[in-house]
């Protein structure tokens, strides 16, 4: 890896300095500090996107970075997503490590061609001579009462695209570390951030900036259980955890796994778990047809064929355009739909 080692990040004073290593942070603030640490660690790291400079991004995730690192490292770009990604490709060829912010999930599509045809393929095209250490940050998912195109979950498109890596964080600790690891990765990483929890006070967590993080491309068992396994990522992890808490009251013990890495998938912990529980529920806000959840089901039914006591069941957003805000509570997987799936699995 070209970038300096990660444990250097954030140790040079400021909000992440050693004498202040453990802080209670929202997910959004953790991202902000993670980005700051990455910029401090490597002068080649750039931020680019619409309104990421003076405004700090519409979600304030890049707050303060332009002020401290200057306009040549934090770029308020023209309003063009293909431009953001396309120029980031050129900057990466030149040796920079651009971090692109796509303002909302639904606005990544004008940049789709650059992602699929250039970002994903340049390393292979050049037989490894040109690296693409590019991060594309995408605030994604629903639950924020927004208008059209602001609540989508496009991650499956990218998981289907060879040459990309795709991750999603679900909590402040992961947010802090994963964004730095993604920036250090020499492969292009699509980084999906659960925007609905950016500033949620009750999702605050203690982030120890001196800790050693687990590797980026690993899933994690968040809660152990025996009745059934629930797999989720991004914003759905909280839903899964809440379901597990609720299930416990009914005497059901759910094992919850946070995928973290969507491509490559790291399903070893899932196979382990399913071999013990015999049942799997996969949860995601994305529409279900030809999605990541389909992939997990396809892999698990193969790897755990003799262990499954019921088919893998999926709890997804529906195969409809994301609905108007007043309907999103029905669109989004919630605790009840997860528990219903658990019951259906048990009754199979």
């Amino acid at each position: 890896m070209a970038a300096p080692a990660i444990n250097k990040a954030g140790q040079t004073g400021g909000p992440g300095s050693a004498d202040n290593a453990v802080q209670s942070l929202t997910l959004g603030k953790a991202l902000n500090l993670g980005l700051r640490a990455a910029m401090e660690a490597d002068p080649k790291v750039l931020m680019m996107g619409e309104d990421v400079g003076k405004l700090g991004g519409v979600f304030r995730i890049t707050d303060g970075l332009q002020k401290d690192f200057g306009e040549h490292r934090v770029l308020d770009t023209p309003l063009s997503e293909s431009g953001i990604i396309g120029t980031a490709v050129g900057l990466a060829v030149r040796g920079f490590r651009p971090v692109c912010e796509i303002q909302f999930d639904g606005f990544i599509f004008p940049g789709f061609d650059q992602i699929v045809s250039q970002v994903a393929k340049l390393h292979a095209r050049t037989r490894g001579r040109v690296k693409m250490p590019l991060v594309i940050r995408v605030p994604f998912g629903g639950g924020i009462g927004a208008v059209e195109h602001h609540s989508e979950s496009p991650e499956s498109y990218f998981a289907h695209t060879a040459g990309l890596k795709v991750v999603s964080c679900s909590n402040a600790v992961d947010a802090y570390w994963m964004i730095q690891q993604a920036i250090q990765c020499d492969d292009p990483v699509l980084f999906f951030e659960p925007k609905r929890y950016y500033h949620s006070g009750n999702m605050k967590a203690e982030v120890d900036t001196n800790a050693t993080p687990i590797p980026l491309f690993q899933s994690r068992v968040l809660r152990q259980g025996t009745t059934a396994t629930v797999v989720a990522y991004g914003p759905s992890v909280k839903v899964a955890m809440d379901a597990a808490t609720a299930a416990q009251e009914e005497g059901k013990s759910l094992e919850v796994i946070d995928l973290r890495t969507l491509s490559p998938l790291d399903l070893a912990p899932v196979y382990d778990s399913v071999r013990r529980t015999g049942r799997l529920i996969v949860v995601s806000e994305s529409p279900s047809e030809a999605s990541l959840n389909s992939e997990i089901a396809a892999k698990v039914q193969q790897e755990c064929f003799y262990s499954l006591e019921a088919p893998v069941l999926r709890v997804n957003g529906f195969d409809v355009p994301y609905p108007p805000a007043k309907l999103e509570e029905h669109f989004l997987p919630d605790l009840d739909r997860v528990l219903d799936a658990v019951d259906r699995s048990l009754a199979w």
Partner: protein
Amino acid sequence: MSSPETWTHPEPREGPAATAAAPTAEQVIAGLRATSEGGPELVQLLTPEGERVPNPEFDRYVADVTAEDLRNLYRDMVLVRRADREANALQRQGQLGIWVPLLGQEAAQIGAGRAMRPTDMAFPSYREHGIAWTRGIHPKELLGIFRGTDNGSWDSNATRFHPYCIVIGNQVLNAAGYAMGQRFEGRVGNSGDADDTNEATMVFFGDGATSQGDVHEGFVWAAVYDAPLVFFCQNNQWAISEPTERQTRLPLYQRARGYGFPGIRVDGNDVLATLAVTRWALDECRHGNGPVLIEAFTYRMDAHTTTDDPTRYRLSDELEAWKLKDPIERLRVNLVRHENADQAFFDSVQADADALAAELRDYCFNMGEPPIEQMFNNVYAEPNPVLDAQRDDFLAYHASFGGEH
């Protein structure tokens, strides 16, 4: 529906943002520059002080405008502003999830909208409440978008006002295609009485949108197919926090120079000039000389949306300077100065505005919850068994909670 405040800003508890940066020197300069009159090529018929200035080229396009027409334009602008302010207030009160203010752009939109014939077609972006008004769409039809019950409830076929478009710039190509269709159907270039059958299309977008590839492709297609399309760019000086300098070196109307069709900058705070220039442009299009690009030089006097905080990126001086060029005020002064309107008129407009606001408010408070099926219906025009099964399953599941869920 969670308030957008909670998602675009850190919670208040976290204290003021550390870097609510004062604008830089460049920004001050940019802001001041923007308050200039828009350059020598700006078409203006009413000065900010409400004086009618002659314009040999465009006067004829408003030669037929009577005092009553002027009063109607004034009334349009006041009502549209009032609806805008009311909706903004409704958002503050939690009745809407978000609102996109039009404040300051009333003249640009009423001037452009009133230049259209009923048979013309319009493709809006998301801030076109004034254009909607001129298409006969009541502001309450917009509310569903911002309250989150639907994506706008007007009939886009009947009103010839396409749905709002939120993806920046991609409606421009849709408009180009529609205008190509008008041409293919022989609705362009007919002369004499048949001129009445001629049609044109308008597409609305912002200064920021001009950077998008789709807007360029719209220029290319409209030029190559001689499409009767008026590109109407409201340059309100800002794309959220970014000044036009982030998008272009040149005034935006000059973009047309590279494509071989006319581009023109009009004072977008001058309803009469905007009306004149748009009438000219639509005429050109209907007669086969399209497309045309209009840059309406105006100003976004409020935040980008109710979730935006402009104090982070622009000086209040800038706003103050633009207030002197308020689009409504200049027409009011003109009406008064030429004794084309009396106090009774202004009172009646005020009363109409109050009534409209009350109606909007009332409508908003009584908007029901959309039925769950709405999410599944109309995704397809013809049956889709996979989705139908999803719907049936979910409705049955939902019913199992006895409607409690």
